[in-house]
Structure formats: structure tokens, C-alpha cells
């Protein structure tokens, strides 16, 4: 007998299974399973809760680390190592709020499992398939790699979720991004993400929930899938997601907060249903051929300003649209680049390997493989490796990757957001140029006047050794 239910997308399923209440106009109260909290976007929310005399609705949904402000050196000095008094106040405010209100798990500054919120969620098994996951942080889209409906929210919404366990939301439209075929050697999930953004633009996904599919996506490891979903927001989409498969399940098995025993079996049976039905309808489809994707380098001040490494810096004179032309001119002036120069001629001052996009163990292994037995170029002032979490750092040290990096002249740091947004001491000085594995090349993102080029870990590592960008496909 034919089913009477229309085929649903993964997003449709995730949405429908979290509706608490819906108004006729589509305004919906959506239930939140996992609420990730960090020190920068939560203090005003807890303050609001207190002022209104409200309590946290479901304490066991909250998982929190301190990550954005925390220093990556000086941990041996304890809390005194957090020298910036304003950063320290935020970190201590989070401590006080978690103490007062509670959490399922808390990873404060200096905790051995502390790390970037989007690294520790999956690592601890706090992110499970079928969940709604929210956080006052736009890269919450990362968790969509586990077939979660995961997206960033503002501080008022953080307060709303704390107080009600729900969000007021309206459904987005469905977008499918298909990447078919095999990626070439030296081409990574980061390059796929950047290539997609280059194709659809930074507003291309606005109003959409993206699902990534195709053989190239299925072939990615869970860490690669996280990298891909992480950058959905850079394509304008609040969330990006990938269906559950064996890899998803194997990744989660045995994680500290994942279910065990009989519950595990039940959970897995449910998780296997978390995929788009055959024939499900998408409002927009975008296709990319994996074989055509090359290592990517951003040249401008928006992630859509990206090109393959063998290309040249764009020439604004060739752009007909006046707003776009001005955008290119302004970006080139800020970035200190001249039109038509090969991207491989761009010399860099600093290298940052880290962030919620690329700070997991596979990223560090890939970068280490490039630098093993070589040395950072003399012209590079600082090359940083910042693991995404305590467990990532310990695993890397177990494998001797810290030695590989240190022998090559890299600094090996404590986990945190670090130079991704430079709220701590790790930053670019005005005019300095970085090769960075993070996700945003906005003006001043890595320090006022700093110039950021987004690349994969392999590309960043190779640039550190060469002192300029190189095509890792030719790295021997």
C-alpha cells in the first residue's frame, strides 16, 4: 500500500518532531533538547532571568564551556593566567551562573576537557542525532553533521530557551547541496565548504535550511562533515545538516554523554530514520562536482571572496555591477592586494591552525603530515596550533603531533577560540596577514587592521613552511 504521508526532508522531520505549539500564521514554539552556553553571549540572559524572577526550565539540557575569552598560554598560573580583567569577569560570571542555575555538564576555564563549544558538544556525546541544538553562537550549525536541527541564537533567545525550553520560530525553506564524485588529494571538507560559499554567495542560503548530500559528502569523516556544516552560516543559512549513517553512529558509540546498553540500541534504531525520504522536495538545489573542487583561498573580506589556489586576485575593472565593483576595490585596499597577482604570490606573516572549523584531531594530523621534518619560513612571525579541546590536545600529544609542530617552529597552545576572533591575546597586528583555518575573514576579525585568508589545515601548514600560499596538491 502506498504511503499517504508525503515524502519529507530531514529538516521537515526534525522540525515536525519539535513543534510544541503552532499559530495559524506558522509562528511556532519549538522544543529545544540541547542548550550550549558560553561566557560571551550568556551573562545578559542569566541577568534577565534573575531580574524577572524566573528559573532555568530544564537544567539537564544545558552544557557549557568557557572558550571565547580564555587564553591559550599561562594555564599553569591558574585563574591568574587570565590577565585581561574584562575577560576574567565574563569567565567568572559564567562560573557563578552555572553554580547558581546548574548544568548537565560544565567545562570551565582550566578544566581538562575544556574546549570550543562546537568541538566539545559532539566529542562529549552532548550532541545526539534528532536533537534541536541551540547556542548563542552562529557556528552552532556545526552540530547539524549529526542530523540535528542546530543553529545560533541571540542573547534574548538564550534567555527565552533558559526560561521556557522553547524558541519562537518560523520554518525555513529546504535547500539541498549535492556534492558528487571523489575529492582530489589535498582537497578537504574546508575546500568544499568554501567552494559552495563561492558558488552561492554569503546570502545564498538566507532563509534556507541546508542539507548536504551526495557521494562526496557521504565519504567525509564525521569531522569533515562538522567542518562542512560549520560554515553553513557563512553561506547565509542558519543551519546545515547531514543524514545519519553508520559513520554517525560509530562516532557516537561510547561518548561520555551518549546512551548505553539497551537505550543505545533503541536510540540507534530511531537515529537510522533521520534522513530525507526518497522523493522529498527541496525548494532549491545546488550541485557541485567534487572532482572540480581545488584547494581554496579567500582573497577578500567576506567568505564568498574566494578562489582556487591556482587563480589570480580579481580585477575590479572586470566587474560590471557598481556595488560589487566597489566591494572588490574596498576589499583589495583593505587586504593590501593588487589585481591579477597569483594567489600563490601572497606572503603571510602569521599562521593559525584552530577554531571550531578546523581544530579536531584529523585537522591536526593533516597539518602535521605537511610540516613533518620541515620548518616554518623565516619570514613567518608566528605559527600557532590551537587544539579544539583538551581531549584533542591529549590525543595529539599521544601521537607525537605536538613534537612535529614544535620541531617545525610552531607554537603548541592550550584549547580555545583563540585567534579565530582574537578576543584573547592571540591576534594580528594592523596590516599583518594570516593563513587561517577559521571561518571568517571579516575586516578586523583576527585583530584590528589584520588581513585574513581562509584555507584548509593542509594549506595553512604548507603556507607556514613556504611563507606564501602554495598548492598542496603539488606538495611533496
Amino acid at each position, binding site marked *: 500500500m502506498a504511503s499517504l504521508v508525503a515524502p519529507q526532508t530531514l529538516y521537515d522531520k526534525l522540525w515536525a518532531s519539535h513543534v510544541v505549539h503552532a499559530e495559524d500564521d506558522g*509562528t511556532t514554539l519549538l522544543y529545544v533538547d540541547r542548550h550550549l552556553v558560553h561566557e560571551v553571549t550568556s551573562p545578559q540572559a542569566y541577568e534577565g532571568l534573575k531580574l524577572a524572577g524566573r528559573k532555568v526550565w530544564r537544567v539537564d539540557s544545558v552544557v557549557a564551556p568557557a572558550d571565547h575569552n580564555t587564553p591559550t598560554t599561562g594555564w599553569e598560573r591558574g585563574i591568574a593566567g587570565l590577565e585581561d580583567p574584562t575577560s576574567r569577569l565574563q569567565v567568572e560570571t559564567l562560573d557563578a551562573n552555572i553554580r547558581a542555575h546548574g548544568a548537565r555538564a560544565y567545562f570551565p576555564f582550566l578544566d581538562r576537557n575544556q574546549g570550543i563549544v562546537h568541538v566539545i558538544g559532539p566529542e562529549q556525546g552532548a550532541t545526539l542525532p*534528532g536533537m534541536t541544538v541551540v547556542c548563542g553562537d*552562529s557556528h552552532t550549525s556545526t552540530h547539524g553533521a549529526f542530523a540535528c536541527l542546530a543553529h545560533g541564537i541571540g*542573547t534574548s533567545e538564550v534567555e527565552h530557551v533558559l526560561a521556557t525550553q*522553547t524558541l519562537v520560530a518560523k520554518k525555513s525553506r529546504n535547500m539541498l547541496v549535492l556534492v558528487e564524485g571523489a575529492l582530489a588529494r589535498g582537497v578537504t571538507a574546508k575546500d568544499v565548504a568554501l567552494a559552495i560559499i563561492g558558488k552561492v554567495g554569503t546570502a545564498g542560503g538566507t532563509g534556507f535550511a541546508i542539507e548536504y548530500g551526495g557521494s562526496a559528502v557521504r565519504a567525509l569523516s564525521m569531522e569533515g562533515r562538522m567542518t562542512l556544516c560549520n560554515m553553513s552560516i557563512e553561506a547565509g543559512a542558519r543551519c546545515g545538516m547531514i543524514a545519519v549513517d553508520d559513520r554517525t553512529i560509530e562516532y557516537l558509540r561510547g561518548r561520555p554523554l551518549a546512551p548505553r546498553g539497551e537505550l*543505545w540500541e533503541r536510540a540507534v534504531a530511531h537515529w537510522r530514520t533521520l534522513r530525507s525520504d526518497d522523493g522529498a522536495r527541496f525548494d532549491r538545489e545546488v550541485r557541485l562536482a567534487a572532482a572540480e573542487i581545488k584547494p581554496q583561498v579567500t582573497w577578500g573580506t567576506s567568505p564568498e571572496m574566494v578562489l582556487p589556489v591556482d587563480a589570480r586576485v580579481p580585477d575590479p575593472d572586470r566587474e560590471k555591477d557598481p*556595488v560589487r565593483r566597489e566591494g572588490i576595490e574596498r576589499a583589495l585596499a583593505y587586504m593590501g592586494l593588487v589585481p591579477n597577482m597569483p594567489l600563490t604570490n601572497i606572503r603571510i606573516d602569521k599562521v593559525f591552525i584552530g577554531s571550531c572549523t578546523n581544530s579536531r584531531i584529523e585537522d591536526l594530523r593533516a597539518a602535521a603530515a605537511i610540516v613533518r621534518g620541515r620548518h616554518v619560513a623565516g619570514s613567518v612571525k608566528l605559527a600557532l596550533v590551537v587544539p579544539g579541546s583538551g581531549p584533542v590536545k591529549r590525543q595529539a600529544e599521544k601521537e607525537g603531533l605536538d613534537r612535529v609542530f614544535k620541531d617545525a617552529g610552531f607554537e603548541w597552545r592550550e584549547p580555545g577560540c583563540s585567534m579565530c576572533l582574537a578576543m584573547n591575546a592571540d591576534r594580528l597586528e594592523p596590516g599583518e596577514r594570516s593563513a587561517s583555518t577559521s571561518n571568517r575573514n571579516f575586516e578586523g576579525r583576527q585583530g584590528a587592521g589584520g588581513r585574513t585568508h581562509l584555507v584548509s589545515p593542509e594549506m595553512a601548514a604548507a603556507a607556514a613552511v613556504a611563507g606564501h600560499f602554495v598548492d598542496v596538491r603539488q606538495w611533496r
Partner: protein
Amino acid sequence: MEKFTTLNGLVAPLDRANVDTDQIIPKQFLKSIRRTGFGPNLFDSWRYLNTGEPGMDNARRPLNPDFVLNQARYQGASILVARANFGCGSSREHAPWALLDFGFRCVIAPSYGDIFFNNCFKNGLLPVVLTQAEVERLFHDVAAFPGFRLTVDLAQQLVSYPDASRAFRFEIDPFRKLCLLEGLDEIGLTLRHSDKIHAFEERRRAEQPWLFG
């Protein structure tokens, strides 16, 4: 939340696309644990000639004379006309807080970053979406006529010229409109559905117990 009903205000233009939240309020100012006081650092890296840090006396910092909001004719503006994808980037609610603290109550642009757009409504800052052509018209007129003002009428969903020579209609989600017009506390509204939330939660706990505990 402060109500938004009608606003008659001076208009300022910000003529660039993809203005991201890192530009609206740079990260060094996110270290505050309050919702107020961000106005002096709105667009900090464009507005001043030196690099801003929290705790500086902003009144003594050198202003960038080329930055549009520093021009005498735009002092006291409460309406900002901007380009596509305004407020893209991070979820920091400090961006609408900074715009409000500076004195803006309304932004007009062809499109916005999703999370920023959402955050505006939670704070009584109205983000109006007009067509590309209408926004183009506004950029033209704000440059051509010093002291250019607009009236934004939320109930009528109209942006109009004071001399009534032009009016642009805009769309807005009815629930968001109501919340703004009445200055409603959204958490209070949601908590009227407490029974439903409890019932949903209990069902979920029974069906997927591994999500709890």
C-alpha cells in the same frame, strides 16, 4: 522591550553591502556583561582613526572624518539605510544593542543576515525590508537632500516621505509586528503555553529517554 509604533527621524546612509556584525560592534567590546553602553563603539573601526579598546574615553579618540556617520548632517539620525545582507555573520545581540544605544530605532535594507534580523525584533529595533529599487531611491535622496527625514509607521507598514510625495509599503511577520507595537515580553507570552511544553516534554521523555538526564 520598548514599543515601536511610529518613528519620524533623520536618515543616515551606509553605502556598502554585506556589513557584518564584526563591523557593527567589534569583538573587543563583547566582553561587557551588560546590554547597554555599546553606542560609542558602533562601527568602531570605521568611525575612529585609532584602535578602540574597552575602557577608553571615546570622546578623546580621533574621529575618521570620511566615515559617513561622523558627518555633521547625520548627527542625531535614528534611521539607517543600508545595503544587502546587512548584519551577516555572528549571532551577537550586541549588534542591535549598539545600533539602539547609538540612537537608531530602524534600519532599512533590501536583506539581512538571518540571526541579526531576528535579534532586532527582540530589542525594539525595526528592520524594514524594501526592494532594491526603493533602497536605491533612498540612497539617492538622502544624499541629495540634507536633513532628509522619513516616517516609519509600523501599524500601516509604511515608510513615507514627510511631504507625502512617496511611500513604500513593507511586509512584516504579524506576530513580530504585534510584539513590537505592544512592547510584549515574549517569554511571558510563551509561558502561557507552559502546560503544552510540559506535556510535550513528558511525551518526549517517554519516547526518547536518552535525551534526558
